[in-house]
């Protein structure tokens, strides 16, 4: 029971995490069951008012790492009616083409994975996240991969 709680993000409902109980990494399943995500934040637990990074490992249902998908992470405070005051950006994948190619950068920022690019080990980073207020945040992971589009949400109490 305790190991299940630890693996799934601590006490309380499975999709709710309190910052003081935040243990790394946290595994969640996407809503339609297509994928499993293991995510962690740097720093951890998520700090208030400071920039942080979310690194997500994208796995298929069998636990195999998926290197050719996209993972975008966003967060909102539903009770306050606002999201983050920053504009997070996905970290660049590993590509055979020069990474400063404007078309490639635009495609990545738009959430698509250009030809010749991949995320080794299925590791995706979202940079520039910031929780600027205490309270309850909803973190949303939007995923595209071989099984199609899916998403996962998690409540995080800061």
């Amino acid at each position, binding site marked *: 029971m305790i190991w299940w709680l630890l693996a799934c993000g601590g006490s309380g409902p499975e999709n709710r995490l309190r910052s003081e109980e935040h243990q790394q990494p946290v595994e969640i399943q996407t809503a339609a069951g297509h994928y499993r995500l293991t995510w962690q934040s740097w720093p951890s637990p998520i700090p*208030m008012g400071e920039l942080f990074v979310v690194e997500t490992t994208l796995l298929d249902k069998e636990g195999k790492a998926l290197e050719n998908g996209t993972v975008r992470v966003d967060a909102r405070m539903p009770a*306050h009616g606002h999201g983050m005051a920053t504009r997070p950006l996905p970290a660049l994948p590993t590509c055979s083409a020069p990474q400063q190619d404007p078309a490639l950068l635009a495609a990545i920022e738009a959430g698509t994975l250009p030809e010749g690019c991949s995320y080794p080990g299925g590791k995706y980073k979202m940079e520039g996240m910031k929780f600027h207020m205490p309270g309850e945040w909803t973190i949303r992971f939007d995923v595209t991969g071989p099984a199609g589009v899916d998403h996962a949400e998690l409540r995080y109490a800061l």
Partner: protein
Amino acid sequence: MWLFLFACGTRSWSEDDLRTLKALSPVPAPPPSPGNSVADRPEAAALGRTIFFDPKFSADGNVSCSTCHMPDRGFADGQKVASVPRGIGTRNVPTVEGAAWNTWFFWDGRADSAWAQATGPLLNPIEHAATPEGVRQRVVEQYAEPFTALFGAISEDPLRVTSQVGKVLEAYERSLSPGSSRFDRYVAALPEETEILTAQEREGLRLFIGDAGCINCHNGPLFTDRSFHNIGLPYTGDGGRVFGASQALANPMNCLGPYSESQDCPELRYLDPAFADWPAAFKTPGLRNVSRTAPYMHDGSMATLQDVLLFYNQLPGEVRVGHRELTLVPLRFQAADLAAIEAFLRSLESEAASH
């Protein structure tokens, strides 16, 4: 006996409360300023202190930083809005004490470093009204030796020299840490309960981190989240952060500009100038030594701390631009509760002598 203890606020703190309180104290060292290679050099701070009080960095020779940021007035000026011989501003003078701990500077955050901020008033035509050429000239005439020791040969680019004046001013401001207060001594002793804070002050603290919700924005050891909020003050034409965010991105003195010594600029890189809550939002001011920096708010519209607390107690008025921070609801507290919060705020006064 229990009613007496309850009324006097001697209830013990929960584990969550203790965690919250420990995060409010003590004041740490200021965060790094990677764009300023002299930020932590004592000789730069000494030069910056001299320049801070020098009125010759102004068109008329009569305005220094200390004209508005007076050490004996909490490094503010005690006025509703800034005023100098040349003109009157539209915003209240923020304190410089603790300012270097911010992420964004000015009420609207249009500067992303303290050194960039310091160049603003220097070149503002209704403040110092200096020109970059005039700033360079003053440096050459009066400060050549210490400047050269810090930056090498004085640059021919007047804007670069102006940025360097900003950098020594930042170095000085980084030494202006709000000193330790009775609140800090109280927190340092926790979980042991002491009388360092009075019962009224402890009750005010309890409300501050609890039912009053002040800590939603006034958090961290400087009692500011360093972010921007619209609290629904009467709109006077000042859009606040919605313009400040765009101006920060365009500011030639910003982290990505030619005068910054680092291009590692994550705050600027991830800034969202179109965040929906920016209209009429202003920076959360820190609260250390707040009792010394009346009047309050970005427009200086509240003369006393009591006025501030009455505002939050009622939240009067319709919001014409943007929307009021949704976490704010009228407190509807009794007078005794408001007095307790005010007493707690006064306990944030630093105990040591002024800088």
